[in-house]
Structures are given as structure tokens and as C-alpha cells.
């Protein structure tokens, strides 16, 4: 069972996703797959802050900035919250010297998430809405946005439920029974 949570920055998607996974975990182990790569003091502080805010909520945190499918063995049969696809996409795309083409990044991430989805009892995926400012950015950024847009569409098609958060409110935009 997979739920996709999409929203803008500060829209309350993390809080909703945590609440969501806690509701459906029903006593099974909850894993938190964190995709932010720590590369300076700012990201370190951010990760620390996120870790503290999850303290006491029963999550086991796994830091996995790329190749999220590789954690499957550790977490099989449990439940997981993965946050967030926008970081993961940037890490997969810009990890090497040459940026990866958006098609390859899309395929890699979708196949990883499919693996997780098939072996977990429940998976909540958090992603970002960065597509509505109308600005034409540099080529690399547009390529990144194309990748994230495509990934979001594919995740939404796979998901049993898609929820958009706005000002802390969850709005269900897809639900299959």
C-alpha cells in the first residue's frame, strides 16, 4: 500500500506524512528513509533538527541519499516513510560530475520505489510541488524539474492514495478502494 503526499514548502506535508504512517503502521516497525545529503553545516543542522523532531515517535532512521531500493533487506515487511523525492532526485541527477539525463533519473527512482512498495506493508512517499512559479531557469534546473515532474506523475499513478497538503490541510486528490 502506497500513499503519495505532495505539497509546497511549509505546507505541512512532513507532519501529515508522519501522522499518516503512524496511523497505518499498526504496531509494525516504522522506518524513516531520509534522503537529504549532508555536505555542510547548514544541512547538518537541518538533519539534526528533523531527527530531534522525530524523537520518541518510534521511527528507525535510515540515511539514504541515493539508491533507496538498496535498503530493502533491512526493512522488509515493515512500514516506511520516505522524505523527500525532491532531494533524492537532485542527488541522483547531480551526484556525478556530469548530470544524469532526466529519463535515466526517472527510471532509477521509480524502479527503486517499486521495489520498496512491493515488499513493505505500507509506504508513504513525500514529494514537493515546485512547478508553479512560471520562471524559466537554467538548463540543468529545467531538466531537474522535468525529472521531478515525471517522477511525481508516475508515483501518483502507482499510489493507492494521493494527498495534496495546503496550509496544513490534507486534500485527497486520488483514492482507490
Amino acid at each position: 500500500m502506497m500513499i503519495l503526499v505532495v505539497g509546497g514548502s511549509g505546507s505541512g506535508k512532513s507532519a501529515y506524512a508522519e501522522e499518516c504512517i503512524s496511523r497505518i503502521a499498526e504496531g509494525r516497525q516504522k522506518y524513516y528513509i531520509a534522503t537529504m545529503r549532508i555536505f555542510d553545516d547548514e544541512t547538518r543542522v537541518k538533519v539534526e533538527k528533523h531527527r530531534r523532531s522525530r524523537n520518541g515517535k518510534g521511527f528507525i532512521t535510515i540515511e539514504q541519499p541515493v539508491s533507496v531500493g538498496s535498503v530493502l533487506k533491512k526493512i522488509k515487511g515493515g512500514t516506511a516513510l520516505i522524505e523527500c523525492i525532491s532531494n533524492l532526485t537532485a542527488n541522483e541527477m547531480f551526484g556525478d560530475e556530469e548530470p544524469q539525463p532526466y529519463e535515466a533519473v526517472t527510471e532509477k527512482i521509480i524502479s527503486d520505489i517499486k521495489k520498496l512498495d512491493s515488499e513493505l506493508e505500507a509506504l508513504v512517499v513525500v514529494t514537493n510541488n515546485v512547478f508553479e512559479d512560471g520562471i524559466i531557469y537554467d538548463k540543468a534546473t529545467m531538466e531537474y524539474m522535468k525529472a521531478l515532474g515525471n517522477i511525481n506523475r508516475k508515483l501518483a499513478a502507482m499510489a493507492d492514495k494521493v494527498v495534496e497538503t495546503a496550509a496544513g490541510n490534507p486534500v485527497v486528490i486520488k483514492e482507490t478502494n
Partner: protein
Amino acid sequence: MKLVIGGFAQGKLDYVLEQIKHEDYMVLDGKLGCGEALSGKQVIVDHLHRLIRECLESGIDPEEKIFDFVEKHPGCILISDEIGNGIVPVDGFEREYRERTGRLLIKLAASAQEVVRVICGIGQKIK
């Protein structure tokens, strides 16, 4: 006329094409004609925001042009990016483009039979 809006790379055209699957259609990409006859076809205008931008760049009133087109093709489907959910641009032209596009979409939405917002490939009927 139907209006479909949504962010960049959200699958708006795919969504529209799925909805009209069995019809004879014509997609006009950022323009209002293609040298071919459009009668009898389901007309779809994609990237309407680009057309608005080009009009403003060449000093043409996009509103008049688009409403004339809609009058001639009342069954058309117009697709535009949502471009207004960001920081106010520093550049004056970019500000005008953003404002004019937003206002024009409001007018089009008001006279549309149906307005759909697409996010992650999913269409939500908002009118």
C-alpha cells in the same frame, strides 16, 4: 470551451488526450492556427501561457486574440501553465507577463464550461 491549468511538467496534455481518446483532434502548440482546417476537429491549444508571452513581447493584445479564437472554436480545450505561485519578479516585463496571464486565465475560467487543475497527472475539476 474547457480550460486546463497546472504546473510545469505535470502531464496536462497527456491528461487531456486521455480524456478525448477516440476523437479526431488537433494540438496547436503555443499558437492559434496551423494552416490546416480545424473544423470538425477537437481543437486543443497547448502552452497558452507561451502564446500570451509572445503577444506581450510583440505588443499585441493577447486577450482579444484568444477570445476571438474561442468565439470561432467554442468547443476548444485551452491548456496553460500555472505561473503565478512564486516570488514577484524583479523584471518589469516578467511582472506584467505574470499578472496578465493570471487575469486572462480568470476571464477564460469564468466563461469556460469546465476548469480542471492538473497536479501529478491527476485532474481535479475546480469548475
